[in-house]
């Protein structure tokens, strides 16, 4: 059996939606997630035709996966802001090759359509008049309502000081009130998790790997979230989870956050003299960027996905 589903990425601009997506396949291939290693997931970018026809096309030697490869290249070069002229679809085949409950295994493989759109479309800055083309707004609105899963990507900032929290709350309220919404799973992913650990040097990864630390971070971050009640309303028909993610991750071997302070802008560490993505590969290991997608597709919890109940439980 093959299960097809659509996942929509939503969040403010510069929130890390495209980076989360660009680092997804690397996170899975490096097993840099909080799922059991025995799950052994595999994720391959596929073409739109393969997604729509639902049958496997053997392109063993063709590694150019089109739009997704372009997205990964752009991410390696510092990223390109997603424009507001359209919404953009990426397709993947997810398979589980390890130990998994038979009722889950029977649903696979999973064909995923991930919809990425500029933050300005769904969550514009509060008070801003952003001229978005109406047909693009309508298209993304339809995709949001029709998606089986929604991933809300939020940067790890003080929510009360962010310029978009009001529009985010309104979007969640509208989603909660919509009867046409099909979403069965909703993941709130806080991106840029590595930034919290920049002063911890080589101990950074040790702390980041502790689910209790992630839970504490989420509790603190959500304290100022005015949209929690809206999300709670969504929970009546959908499974809601919270998680943290890091597209830059922590460096291999050295374990510090992968942000090179000697580079202009925000860049990952790279081997000097080696061009393009290969220069990054020696150090780059994204962290937990697979979590939102795997939960959205499978409904399986990892050590780093937390429910409302866990978030609201009294800390021990």
């Amino acid at each position, binding site marked *: 059996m093959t299960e097809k589903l659509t996942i929509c990425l939503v969040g403010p*601009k*510069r929130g890390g939606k495209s980076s989360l997506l660009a680092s997804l396949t690397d996170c899975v291939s490096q097993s840099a997630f909080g799922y059991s290693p025995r799950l052994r997931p595999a994720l391959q970018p596929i073409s739109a035709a393969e997604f729509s026809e639902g049958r496997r096309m053997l392109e063993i030697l063709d590694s150019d996966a089109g*739009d997704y490869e*372009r997205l990964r*290249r*752009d991410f390696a*070069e*510092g*990223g*390109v*802001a997603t*424009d*507001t*002229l*359209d919404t*953009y679809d990426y397709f993947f085949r997810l398979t589980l090759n390890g130990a998994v409950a038979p009722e889950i295994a029977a649903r696979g493989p999973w064909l995923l359509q991930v919809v990425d759109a*500029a*933050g*300005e479309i769904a969550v*514009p*800055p509060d008070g*801003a*008049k*952003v*001229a*978005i*083309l109406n*047909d*693009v707004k309508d298209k993304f609105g339809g995709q949001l309502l029709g998606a089986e899963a929604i991933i809300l990507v939020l940067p790890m900032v003080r929510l009360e000081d962010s*310029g978009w929290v009001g529009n985010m709350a309104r979007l969640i309220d509208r989603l909660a009130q919509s009867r046409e919404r099909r979403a069965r799973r909703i993941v709130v992913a806080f991106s840029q998790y590595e930034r919290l650990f920049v002063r911890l040097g080589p101990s950074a990864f040790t702390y980041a790997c502790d689910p209790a630390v992630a839970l504490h971070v989420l509790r603190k971050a959500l304290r100022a979230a005015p949209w929690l009640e809206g999300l709670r309303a969504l929970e009546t028909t959908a499974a809601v989870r919270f998680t943290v993610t890091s597209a830059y991750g922590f460096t291999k071997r050295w374990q510090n956050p992968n942000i090179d302070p000697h*580079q*202009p*802008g*925000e*860049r990952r560490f790279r081997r000097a003299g080696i061009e393009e993505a290969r220069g990054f590969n020696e150090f780059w290991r994204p962290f937990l960027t697979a979590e939102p997608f795997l939960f959205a597709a499978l409904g399986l919890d990892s050590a780093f996905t937390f429910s409302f109940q866990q978030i609201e439980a009294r800390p021990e």
Partner: protein
Amino acid sequence: MTIGPRDGDEIVIERLHYGKLAVGEELRIPPSEGFGVTRRSRGLDPSFDSDFAPARLLGLRRFDAGAVDDTNPHGCLAVRSAPARFAPLAPLVLMRTRFRPEDGERGQGRRYQQSAIWAADFESWRRNPRGVLALADAELRARPDLLSEEASRRFQSEALRRRLDRAPAGAVRPATTAYVVDLLCSYAYRGEDCLVTFGEGCDFTSEAEFLASVGYALSLLPQDYPRWRDISLLSGLRCALPGICLRYLPSYRAAQRAA
């Protein structure tokens, strides 16, 4: 839209800018600014905005950095007749677009798409293609608008009015110009698509020379040349347009030599 034929050598150009608003000398994008139409001259109807999107003008499913082969800091260039929806006015559309860093011209950070689009009447193009291309070379820039400029001014600005030069300065490559004239004549009644790519260092030394030479070649065509509306020019763009497409690709010769 009020674009229509004008008398003499004057050209009236309606403008539309898509991108982000910038601040300072380096034209840095403040974190508060998002994508949008940042300038639209009074003669353009907002309902046409989506038709001026770079992907639609270039006939692409999506326009991304992979479509750009650009060494020109002003952006890559496309010149074409407007798609059918604009009929019967069907103006000429000129577009410069580029991916520039959000942290300023010399920045290293995340890039975003900045586009500047001109729509002008087709007769001016037919009468004086050389002058139109010289004007685009001199003035069309994919440069962000300033946040400090009031929105009311940016969205109610007058169309540009310029007098086209009959014999603009600019080096012309006679051999390549003759080749382009030959090509255009041979395709005049064939009705087939044709893509010709010129590279840097061999065919032309720069985009300016490409525009000057092709402009000169086009100025030699009779005004009743049957495929005027099929002619398009691209510079720094890897895609192709249907019809007779003349493309300047800086990396083209280097790639051929390497092969």
